């Protein structure tokens, strides 16, 4: 029996054509494509065969899977996600043990060279035993599965940059997927967790155009990570005016002023939170009154306190500066004494 197209699958599940086109238009808008691209996306998605997807989960908290599957139901994002042929996913699949592994191997065999490999979680290099699935180390499984993949998508900050497991002192020797896979295109979709529509948006882009989207210097799709949270933040006018909340419960916070002083990392964080938001467009962290943590940036765990403002630097310690002052005073005194001695000698040598 021939496999259904994505369009057939969606319409069978009760998605109206109007709703489908609306999603495609929104997607084209988010990806900064011209309005005419919406119909191209719709046509391509409607006819696209369900792509085979293998999802590997390594050193992760499952938050990325939760983000997508439990975001809000039912939406086109999760319906599209449901409509792909998710042949292997350790958390979601019913099979367990050797059966689960057989599902992955079968999917690889049936779709060799064409399946998408989605990876969630970092890869420990310190010791193969730190994280295994069915006795196979994460590193070995990633290398083996990536061989037949058309593209690799690193879902979440752990897979994209190492995330929390890589945070200092990185006890497991965690690395990002792109540190292991060098011969395949790796698309990073960071976030802790990533925005659901960004995950499906990248999948839709691949299904529509058959290519990977344009990426930024950190391997992220520019369409979703091209602008900083700060640039698209609705509180930005308060930043421009210099109106800042000083604490979480002061008048400024109640008035919805800028959270820069409370440690907001929006100015250095690139993500789609401020535009597509969360929970079906309800809000995003800043709208809920909390500063952006910068979770879609590499090593965000190791950039000091979440509540330290960007303007604050790590200037060192009082002991370090005290030592510098002591050495400076000694050097100054030494130089002055040397000069005095020279003057004294010169005076004595005078006739």
């Amino acid at each position: 029996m021939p496999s259904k197209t994505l369009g057939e699958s969606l319409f069978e599940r009760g998605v109206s054509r109007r709703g489908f086109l609306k999603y495609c238009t929104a997607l084209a808008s988010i990806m900064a494509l011209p309005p005419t691209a919406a119909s191209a996306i719709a046509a391509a998605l409607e006819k696209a065969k369900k792509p085979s997807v293998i999802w590997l989960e390594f050193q992760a908290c499952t938050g990325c899977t939760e983000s997508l599957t439990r975001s809000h139901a039912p939406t086109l994002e999760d319906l599209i996600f449901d409509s792909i042929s998710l042949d292997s996913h350790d958390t979601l699949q019913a099979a367990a043990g050797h059966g689960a592994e057989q599902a992955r191997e079968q999917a690889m065999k049936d779709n060799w060279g064409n399946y998408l490999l989605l990876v969630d979680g970092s890869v420990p290099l310190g010791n193969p035993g730190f994280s295994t699935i069915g006795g196979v180390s994460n590193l070995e499984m990633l290398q083996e599965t990536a061989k037949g993949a058309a593209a690799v998508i690193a879902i979440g900050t752990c897979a994209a940059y190492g995330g929390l497991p890589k945070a200092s002192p990185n006890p497991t020797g965690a690395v990002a997927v792109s540190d292991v896979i060098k011969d395949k295109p790796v698309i990073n979709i960071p976030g802790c967790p990533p925005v659901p529509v960004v995950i499906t948006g990248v999948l839709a882009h691949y299904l529509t155009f058959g290519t990977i989207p344009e990426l930024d210097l950190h391997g992220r799709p520019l369409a979703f990570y091209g602008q900083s949270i700060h640039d698209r933040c609705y509180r930005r006018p308060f930043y421009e005016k210099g109106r800042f909340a000083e604490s979480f419960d002061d008048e400024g916070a109640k008035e919805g002023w800028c959270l820069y002083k409370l440690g907001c990392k929006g100015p250095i964080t690139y993500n789609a939170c401020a535009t597509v938001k969360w929970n079906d467009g309800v809000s995003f962290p800043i709208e809920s009154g909390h500063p952006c943590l910068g979770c879609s940036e590499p090593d965000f765990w190791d950039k000091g306190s979440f509540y330290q403002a960007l303007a604050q630097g790590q200037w060192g310690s009082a002991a370090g500066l005290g030592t510098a002052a002591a050495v400076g005073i000694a050097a100054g005194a030494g130089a002055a004494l040397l000069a005095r001695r020279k003057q004294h000698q010169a005076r004595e040598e005078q006739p």
Partner: protein
Amino acid sequence: MSLLDFARGPGLHWAFIIFVFGICWRFVGTLLIARRIKLSTPRRTDNWLMGLKAIETRSWPVEEFHRVIRFQHYSGYIWHISFFIVLFFFQPHILFFKSILGISWPGLPNDVILVVGAIAVATLVALLGRRLSHPVLRKISNVDDYISWLVTTLPLITGFMAFAHVGGRYETLLALHILSVELLMVWFPFGKLIHAVLVVPSRFQIGASFGRRGVRA
């Protein structure tokens, strides 16, 4: 480690260490340096009072030369005052000082800071133009003068760029701004910028010395 991480972390740390070391070295070295042997009888005994008076009188243009030096003198005031306003009253800067000193103070609206910052840059450009176009001033200028001008101007320019998000990604511009401040801090004790620390004691010394000889300082 990103450029911003370096600028906010090790870069700032070492800039502070060099800054503190350099200032202590120059200040103590200058205070303890050998004094000229005084062979004559002093004409006045209240030299310290003359020293204090010189701190004040040297803050204003000498009447005889007022017409000649007024541009440089007043533009110097405009530059210093506008620079200090930007440095101490821009709210992100106050956050920076709070992280070091533990205290904060009210800031000025960003619009005010932008105008004052523009005045500071314009004054610096005008002063550089005068230095380059004035034959005598150009003759007595050395590399130190131009480096000091550059390291003082760069933080203002990069600060504008970071604030307005012009010329690159914000994290890069912020990193460049912090690095330019670090460059200023590293150069500060070793070039002519040390005048900020030595101006008061040196004026006192000149006043006291002139007073001893009965000369108006």
